[in-house]
């Protein structure tokens, strides 16, 4: 019988370009804040799991080797997960399994990116000219979703406004635009038709960390823990004839496995809020449908009705999401860490009142990697 995993400490850096810190300084800031939140020190940690997106972003290969001292990992187990954009999510899940296995009592997990050291577009294209970038790859899929669902053009703009205004309530967010309007998004330059500039995620530096422990450790934690109720990962082949990258089967399978493990039968009703990996605005309705939170073709209607606002019946990306902060290696972890903030009641100005059960999702690659978890304020919630 597996141990229950509890998140008892959360730490983040401010997300921004060119943070004036070394690699050591960046990860330590998040780690020390998480440890302080948990009222623990490095000495209390049994194992460390780090996660980061491609090494070419910083030009540092296998950074666990050069960061182990900074995280006090000397003499301890440390390993590094890499699953493209979903890596932060996969890392959180990997750390959770270390606790759930019963092999370790207290685990520190850190995900980060210091992409100002390099250049994201260059790293993605290997320096080849004419690189379409992530947006250039996804824009045709977004156009496909718009066409099939009949969604009006303003849906993407609405998501951008919501997320940027939410980000203004998050002291760590890179981009914060309390006064952003639909008009401003629509008028902003077109980058990858139909994606406008203000619908695109920033390129950020930053680190996020969590301290995880088992039930015994959770009893000693100074603040309420976030219990990891269930987690799931699914991957499908990235390219093959007949593949649907717009509503990938792996995304649906991941959600199904997750909900089944959690005992959730009606996600829209039984989950209080969610953080979904939305680097370009239209991914919000696409993931709402892609993860079976609503029927096909209904995702954009959820956005349009205001359901995904903090005050709505299914708030999404209360923290501002990837559209406000995107240190790639950390973004996936943030999507799993922010739900933990919500169910602990520590989400400050973007807290969803009474959030008890929250969903976190990260995706990566050509929409073929998915990592998701459900956290709750209770260790064994039941759903009806």
């Amino acid at each position, binding site marked *: 019988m597996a141990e229950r995993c509890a998140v008892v400490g959360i730490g983040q850096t401010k997300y921004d370009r060119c943070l004036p810190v*070394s690699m050591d300084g960046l990860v330590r800031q998040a780690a020390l804040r998480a440890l302080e939140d948990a009222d623990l020190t490095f000495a209390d940690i049994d194992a460390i799991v780090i996660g980061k997106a491609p090494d070419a972003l910083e030009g540092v290969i296998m950074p666990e080797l050069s960061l182990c001292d900074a995280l006090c990992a000397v003499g301890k187990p440390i390993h590094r997960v890499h699953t493209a954009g979903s890596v932060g999510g996969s890392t959180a899940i990997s750390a959770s399994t270390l606790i759930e296995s019963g092999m370790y009592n207290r685990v520190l997990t850190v995900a980060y990116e210091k992409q100002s050291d390099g250049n994201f577009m260059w790293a993605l294209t290997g320096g080849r*000219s004419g690189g379409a970038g992530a*947006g250039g790859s996804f824009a*045709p899929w977004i156009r496909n979703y718009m066409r099939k669902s009949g969604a009006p053009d303003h849906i993407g703009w609405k998501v951008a406004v919501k997320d940027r205004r939410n980000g203004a309530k998050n002291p760590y967010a890179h981009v914060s635009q309390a006064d952003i309007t639909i008009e401003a998004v629509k008028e902003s330059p077109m980058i990858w038709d139909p994606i406008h500039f203000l619908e695109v995620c920033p390129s950020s530096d930053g680190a996020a960390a969590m301290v995880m422990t088992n039930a015994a450790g959770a009893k000693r934690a100074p603040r309420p823990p976030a219990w990891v109720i269930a987690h799931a990962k699914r991957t499908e082949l990235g390219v093959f004839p007949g593949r649907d990258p717009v509503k990938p089967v792996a995304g649906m399978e991941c959600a199904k496995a997750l909900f089944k493990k959690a005992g959730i039968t009606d996600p829209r009703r039984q989950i209080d809020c969610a953080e979904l990996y939305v680097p370009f605005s239209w991914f919000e309705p696409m993931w709402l449908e892609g993860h079976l939170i609503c029927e096909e073709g209904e995702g954009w209607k959820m956005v349009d009705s205001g359901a995904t606002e903090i005050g709505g019946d299914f708030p999404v990306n209360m923290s501002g999401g990837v559209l406000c902060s995107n240190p790639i290696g950390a973004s996936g972890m943030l999507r799993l860490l922010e739900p933990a903030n919500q169910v602990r009641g520590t989400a400050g100005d973007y807290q969803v009142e009474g959030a008890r059960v929250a969903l976190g999702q990260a995706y990566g690659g050509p929409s073929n990697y998915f990592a998701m978890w459900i956290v709750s304020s209770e260790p064994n919630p039941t759903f009806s």
Partner: protein
Amino acid sequence: MSEFPISFTLEYPYTRTLGPVIGPFLTALRDGCILGIRCGNRVLCPPIEFDPDTGETLSPDLVEVGPAGSVESWTWIAEPSRKHPFQEPFAFALVKLDGADTAMTHAVKAAGPEAMSTGMRVRAQFREERAGAITDVYFVPEGDARDQSIAPGEGEVEISTHLISLTYNDTLYPHAARYAQGLLDGKFIGQRISGDQVAIPGKGYDALARVMLTEADDVELAPTGTVLSYTVITPVKYRGQKETEPYLSATIILDGAGQSLVQQDIRNIPLDELRVGMRLRAIFKPAAERKVDDVDNDWMYPSIGDVVERWEPTGEPDVPLDGLPESM
């Protein structure tokens, strides 16, 4: 079968922000001196931001160490790599500078291995051109050291640059070589996989049936297809980028193929005239002008080389939207 060598260089000048310890350390190197950091009753050099034993953050109490020190270990590099500090034989060594309690790894320029020994004394020398980097300094045997007068630079070094350049050489794998040859011959060669689908470019294997494919599985596709989707790309500046004007990037599915050719540049059709469902034909360049330099082994970077002059509307009626393949 011709061989298709592929070679590419990953090169980028990384620019690193440094923080409150490495910044002053590199600034000091630029200014001709080496710093360590106080940690309890020890001095650590190179300086670290924290106590390596307890993990506690150290206040940046930096002190000058050296410029001389002792070699704790060394190795004579008979054939330096292109990335080493010297291109003639030299030694890497662990040097414990006077005043420091820990050793730093660095390079020693000496006449030969017979000049090196554990315990020997070495002295720091500073290069004429300094940038605020670890390469600003090196070491020589004490007897070879020259006095230097280094004029300090202006301001603090807050960013350090490292040009990282790596070259990779390979050849196109057999299936990719046949695909590239096909492009040079003005043909699109895909590979038939299970379910009677055609993958283009082929991967040399069928990832669904999990078997290797051979030349017998190659199939030529007609150079006509349908637009499944598209975007207009506004070029972003980055190192290596040559594009400046917005251009169409279309997803085209060739007739008979089961997966589309993504990111096909369309330059000859006005930005607002491309339609989903539009029928296009690839017009190949004259044979002598066709190039396959950027055809790759890795299907993550699909390319049809530089063989298509343009995608020409065929004039056929558009494929109705509900007649398009479900998937892309």
